[in-house]
């Protein structure tokens, strides 16, 4: 069977050659470069179905004719082909394949290069780790896969976009989102959810100065480079079709289960005297239920469907990849859904010996709706205030639909969703075209143009039949168009002198501009559900419009040199001019220098067999963050209306000196491949951000609350590690575990106005010199057992130090006077992921975990749900039963009648470990497909997302990326089954 399978696998159906010459038996041994036997290596006669395997000692024997070619292959090694002459024995040494190093990447303009020859630090995540997930946004696939990259999904909306941070938080209010570039063209992070992850060949995260400085004023947060799939030349096209179907649920229902039952809540009401027994009896007569509301507001088992079809192929001259995809996902909360159709066509053609042209067209149409009853709404985030004895069903079991639920006084969430539709339709279009000319050997001229375009329409209605405003429907139509255009021209010259001196010189120019054009119209007075266009309205007719623009003009260059693939150096420069910068500033200049040493090339390592590869890199350079508003630099006057006439009033204070945030990043890294099995990537980085973009607070007497300015410095340094191993490897089974993580330390070194600290108002977050961004809040000292009052520590003279002296406490709350450092970091210092890929025969199992440690949140839900006096009359978590009743009681909560405050009691450890992905699949054996050449392969699989969450956080979702959270639409989990066929 093994033999048969192998012969099928390797020989295919090509058995045209029947001219058997004299066959003879050849024997030998297959060893690795370290001399170890390679067992289970495949030995096959090329162009035949003759194949065998090596035994445990690496020995084999096979029949082959003279002039035949024998191929030796084993996972983790380079193939070796030997032409047979007269020998009877043939022993071969296989060298480890560093396929990762041979992979090609595109690094900041210029032509593609092998990963191993790039000085810049980068991590590439390949398409197989991105496609096929039960989530619309490709970005989530990066979670836990890239050392130093923190990826969080903050909510359960199917159309959400993840928050991404590389190497910590380098900007306090200039934004921390990386620059996204797809096939050389910058795109907005919000566009990615409109694209099919299946179309991504790879996503490469560019990390250090050598890799990012060439992107200049937008590169401080790193660059995420998306490469879409290309066709591969072959005699026959490859068609892949896949269908997936599954269900979504809340990732974690524990917080919902904290709410009290009828008996518990009534017990509390009686005990605190909030209600008398007689009143409780009355309630029980009127509302004899004990309803589980969480499953009413947060649906169960909502469907998700995904279909993908792609075809790739081509000839030597022209390659194509075309694809179509569809996803339809419903959210767990009402009126939350997303469906998306995508199409892509990527064509590259070599029109003559020196000219290549390419056109990538990616487009899609998606429809989305999000739950509109926000975090602060008792129809949304605070719906769990509902008392358990109310019920959405009447005595006959009929659901209340178009009238308020008795007692609760609010409509059924489904009714609200039905009556208040707000669907958006978004057209996304991402074309990229290039022409590349090589007029001389080594010289490449390239012009590329592309854009990121969306066109979004939202139709918001309150239907006239809505019971809450009967006959008074409203209509709003919103239109938004964004065009982000980029044109890039580069010249690259590449040459090798004396076989060892390789130079690549690159120069280029780039112009990009963005224009967003929005308008909306609305009308009211709609009376009939059949007549709900804007023009059917009779009153409140209103229009709005806004236009936002910016532009960048840039020049850049790079020189790369390597000596014999052993010593590499490169240097980059970039100049950016932008419409966003203040009048007093012309342009921003950026630079980097970097070096890499390929140690394996040194003679002293050449014979160290367990070291297959060892490289060290060091780079330093500057980048910018241009996350200032489009017109923040200008002092402007806007309009308003009085008595149907236009009025002019001050809009923005302006700042003619407003500039980009400046970053200097230095990275030292080591990457290695050991024993042919272990891959290691480690780096240490140091980021210094200066001229921090801040909304510097001003006294209100100035007429402004804040002015966008450059002030302050921030330092981040840390360590990233990626480690993977091939523990078992053979054609039949494999197990490759991995771990990636990043540790980062942050320190504010200077802020505005020479202050030592600034507590950002109403956030609980402080920027204090010499410390990371921290939570500053009044610090609880526990409930005084004698009087049942909450106590807080009195801050010391320096509130940047946490002062917790049991002898200095107060029971009088004051949010400003008691605020002080809690010693808790705002940003999680330790993030990463681990997992493994494994397989046995046709069965495979892949598991991916993501984690964050040292992550804290102000759990504002607890202010609502653990505040039985302040929110009396609403349901609460049962934790509140632990309150002070009599002297001597040691309790979590003070005596009834005290308001629980915004203090350190709400700050909770939201560290988590989440099983982000679990895939079990089965590849049908090849024998199934024998005898036909239509199907190539087939597999069935199960994929789960967020199946397990481990956290001590009590709120709905620990993954929320914020300082404070309440009423989150929490993350969901998916279980999906799928079928994939290849033709």
């Amino acid at each position, binding site marked *: 069977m093994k033999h048969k399978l192998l012969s099928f696998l390797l020989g295919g159906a090509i058995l045209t050659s029947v001219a058997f010459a004299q066959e003879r038996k050849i024997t030998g041994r297959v060893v690795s470069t370290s001399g170890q036997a390679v067992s289970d290596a495949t030995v096959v006669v090329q162009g035949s179905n003759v194949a065998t395997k090596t035994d445990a000692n690496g020995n084999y024997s096979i029949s082959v004719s003279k002039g035949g070619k024998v191929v030796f292959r084993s996972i983790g090694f380079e193939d070796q082909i030997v032409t047979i002459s007269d020998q009877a024995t043939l022993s071969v040494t296989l060298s480890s394949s560093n396929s990762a190093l041979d992979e090609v990447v595109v690094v900041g303009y210029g032509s593609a290069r092998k990963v191993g020859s790039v000085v810049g630090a980068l991590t590439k995540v390949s398409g197989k780790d991105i496609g096929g997930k039960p989530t619309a946004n490709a970005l989530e696939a990066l979670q836990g896969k890239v050392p130093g990259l923190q990826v969080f999904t903050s909510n359960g909306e199917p159309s959400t976009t993840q928050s991404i941070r590389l190497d910590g938080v380098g900007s306090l209010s200039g934004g921390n989102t990386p620059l996204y570039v797809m096939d050389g063209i910058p795109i907005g992070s919000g566009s990615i959810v409109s694209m099919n992850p299946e179309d991504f060949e790879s996503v490469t995260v560019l990390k250090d100065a050598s890799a990012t400085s060439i992107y200049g004023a937008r590169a401080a947060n790193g660059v995420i480079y998306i490469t879409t799939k290309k066709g591969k030349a072959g005699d026959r096209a490859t068609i892949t079709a896949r269908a997936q179907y599954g269900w979504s649920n809340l990732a974690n229902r524990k917080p919902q289960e904290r709410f009290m039952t009828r008996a518990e809540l009534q017990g509390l009401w009686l005990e605190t005297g909030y209600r008398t027994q007689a009143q409780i009896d*009355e309630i029980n007569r009127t509302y004899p239920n004990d309803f589980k509301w969480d499953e009413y507001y947060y649906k169960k088992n909502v469907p998700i469907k995904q279909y993908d079809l792609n075809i790739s192929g081509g000839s030597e001259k022209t390659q194509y990849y075309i694809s179509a995809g569809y996803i339809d996902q419903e959210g767990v909360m009402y009126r939350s859904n997303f469906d998306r159709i995508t199409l892509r066509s990527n064509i590259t053609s070599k029109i003559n010996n020196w*000219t290549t042209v390419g056109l990538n067209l990616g487009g899609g149409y998606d429809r989305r709706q999000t739950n509109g009853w926000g975090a602060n709404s008792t129809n949304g985030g605070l719906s769990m205030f509902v008392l358990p004895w109310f019920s959405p069903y009447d005595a006959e079991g009929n659901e209340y639909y178009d009238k308020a639920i008795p*007692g*609760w*006084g609010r409509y059924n969430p489904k009714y609200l969703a039905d009556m208040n539709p707000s669907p958006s339709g978004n057209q996304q279009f991402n074309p990229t075209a290039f022409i590349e000319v090589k*007029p001389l050997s080594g010289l490449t*001229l390239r*012009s590329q143009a592309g854009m990121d375009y969306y066109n979004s329409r939202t139709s918001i209605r309150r239907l006239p039949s809505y*019971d*809450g*405003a009967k006959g008074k429907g409203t209509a709003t139509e919103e239109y938004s168009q964004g065009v982000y255009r980029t*044109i890039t*021209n580069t010249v690259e010259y590449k040459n090798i002198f004396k076989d060892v001196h390789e130079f690549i010189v690159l120069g280029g*120019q780039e*112009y990009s*501009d963005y224009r967003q054009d929005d308008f909306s119209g*609305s009308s009211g007075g709609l009376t009939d559900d059949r007549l709900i266009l804007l023009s059917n309205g009779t*009153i*409140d007719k*209103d229009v709005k419009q806004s*236009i*936002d623009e*910016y*532009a960048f*003009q840039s020049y850049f260059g790079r020189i790369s040199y390597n000596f014999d693939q052993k010593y590499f150096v490169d240097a980059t420069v970039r100049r950016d001019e932008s419409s966003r910068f203040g009048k007093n500033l012309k342009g921003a200049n950026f630079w980097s220098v970097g070096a890499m040493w390929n140690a394996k090339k040194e003679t002293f390592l050449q014979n160290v067999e367990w070291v297959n590869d060892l490289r060290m890199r060091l780079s330093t350079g500057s980048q910018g963050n241009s996350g200032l508003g489009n*017109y923040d630099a*200008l002092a*402007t*006057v806007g*309009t*308003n*209306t*009085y*008595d149907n*006439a236009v*009025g*002019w*009033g*001050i809009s923005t*204070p302006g700042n003619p000196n407003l500039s980009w945030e400046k970053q200097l990043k230095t990275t030292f890294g080591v990457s290695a491949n050991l024993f042919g099995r272990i891959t290691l990537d480690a780096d240490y980085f140091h980021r210094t951000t200066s001229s921090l973009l801040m909304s510097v*607070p*001003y*006294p*209100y*007497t*100035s*007429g402004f609350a804040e*002015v966008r300015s450059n002030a302050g410095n921030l330092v981040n340094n840390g360590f990233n590690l990626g480690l993977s191993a091939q523990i078992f490897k053979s054609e039949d089974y494999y197990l490759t575990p991995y771990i990636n993580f990043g540790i980062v330390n942050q320190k504010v070194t200077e802020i505005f106005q020479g202050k030592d600290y*600034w*507590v950002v*108002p109403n956030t609980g977050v402080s920027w204090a010199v010499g410390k990371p961004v921290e939570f500053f809040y009044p610090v609880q000292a526990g409930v005084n057992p004698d009087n049942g009052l909450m106590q807080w520590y009195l801050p010391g003279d320096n509130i940047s130090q946490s002062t917790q002296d049991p002898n200095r406490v107060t029971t009088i*709350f*004051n949010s*400003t006077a008691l605020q002080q450092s809690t010693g808790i970091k705002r940003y999680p210092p330790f993030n990463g992921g681990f997992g493994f890929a494994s397989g046995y025969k046709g069965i495979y199992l892949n598991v991916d975990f993501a984690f964050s440690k040292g992550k804290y949140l102000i759990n504002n839900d607890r202010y609502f749900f653990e505040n039985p006096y*302040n929110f*009396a*009359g*609403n349901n609460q978590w049962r934790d509140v039963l632990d309150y002070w009743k009599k002297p001597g009681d040691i309790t979590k909560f003070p005596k009834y009648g005290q*308001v629980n*405050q915004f203090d350190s009691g709400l700050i909770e450890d939201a560290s988590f470990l989440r099983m982000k992905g679990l895939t079990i699949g089965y590849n049908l054996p090849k024998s199934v497909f024998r005898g036909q050449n239509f199907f190539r392969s087939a597999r069935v699989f199960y994929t789960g997302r967020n199946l397990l969450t481990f956290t001590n956080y009590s709120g709905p979702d620990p993954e929320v990326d914020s300082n404070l959270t309440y009423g989150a639409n929490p993350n969901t989990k998916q279980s999906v089954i799928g079928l994939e066929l290849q033709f």
Partner: protein
Amino acid sequence: MKNFKNILGIILLGTVVQSCNIDKFPQDKIELSQSFQTVEDAKNWDNATFSFFRSRSYGIYSQVTDVQADQLNAVQDFGNVYGDEHRWTNFLSDNYSIRDIYRNYYSGINNLNTAIKGYSTIVPKNDAEKTLLNQYIGDAHFARAYYYLNLTLRFAKAYNASSAESDLAVPLVLVPDLEAKPARATVDAVYKQILSDIAIAKTNLMSQKGKLAATRFTIDAVIALEARVKLYMSDWGGAANAAVQLIKEGKYPLTTTQEAFRKLWIDDSGDEVIFQPVVSRPNELPNTISTTYGYSAANKDYRPGFMPSLWVINSFSNADFRKSVYFKEVTVGGQSLDKPQKGIVVNKFAGSLVTGLNIDLTTNYVTPKVFRIAEMYLVAAESYFKAGNEFEALKYLNELRIARGLTAVSSSGNSLFKDIKDERTKELIFEGFRLDDLKRWGEGFQRRDPQLPFARTGAEYADKKVEANNLKFVWGLPANDVTINPNIVQNPGW
């Protein structure tokens, strides 16, 4: 072929040196430096003076102090909206109401300062333009006086002639200066500035004759503001003169029937009104006072956050035209009520379904009645009383009482003062005057007599007792300014 290759190469290189325009300007805004070129520009700034004035009337500007005072009780389901203000205990300097009121008055002042400065750079082309420009200057000074009065009422002790020169009020900012870190001016200095602005407004608006329900500042509005300011300054003669001047002018007669009084409040008839900003749907909507109303269309009942205490309702006799206009008995619902039941809500700002401002009663849009003649009667009565002229005091008190369907009183001495205070409290109820009146009268309070079972009970709510010397009668300056501006001294108790 070789040539073509080279030409193509040159074209590609050529595009490298193309130059592109990177200047981008907003299209819905203009640069400040370009905005004071003509009197037509000044007119636009003047319109904004009114637009900003409208957005600084009613809403939090009157509602918050009433919630803090003694006439309203939080209901069980009030959701902690204005909870700190109502309880006093945790009413702190980072409170949003404090922040918003302070910040918005100052951003209004910054606009006015910018306009006043900009107006001085415009050269009018002719006399007509000159007249217009003077009017705009008058409008700006009027609005600035009004904002400074309200800031001082909130953030300073009541005017006391003996300590006004040392009591701290708010910083006086009279020219736009982004980098300024002004210290607090004294109560005396702020009132002097207010009077100086009023004087300029008086000169410049002399030809803007008053009329009923004016929607631009008139000379009468200036006089009404003067009367109010001088009352707060205990300038009894000045206050009485200003108030009586308006009363005697006869342009703003008191309504005399129940129906006319109802229309004045509910249907925005404009009677008795000296100044009110324009309001209209959909772009010129006013702030509302709806926390005391809370109509729920879903439940067809009312869910106010605060309800008036019974003693307040009962202080109005049944003959009083105001009672049925200011209050309404309705069905009150709520999750914590075991079932909906009858209760009394504030109806004064319910809004009308006939003015076109409201489609249903969930919105409560009404025209803010910023200056009304009834206030002038009360200013006159109190000022004459304080000046020792009980005859005139009684006269104006009784004219108002009779217009409201009541009989004349003939009290004297402290009893007359109490009658005047009670009348003021009733007439101006929930318009934002109560807390300032208690403060200047030196009175504390004891909340009492809540409507049950709706109201929250307990020492922090329905039984709240506040002494006259409670430091939180005077609001603390917002934490932001105390932190950012080293020259700011915080009020005691904050």
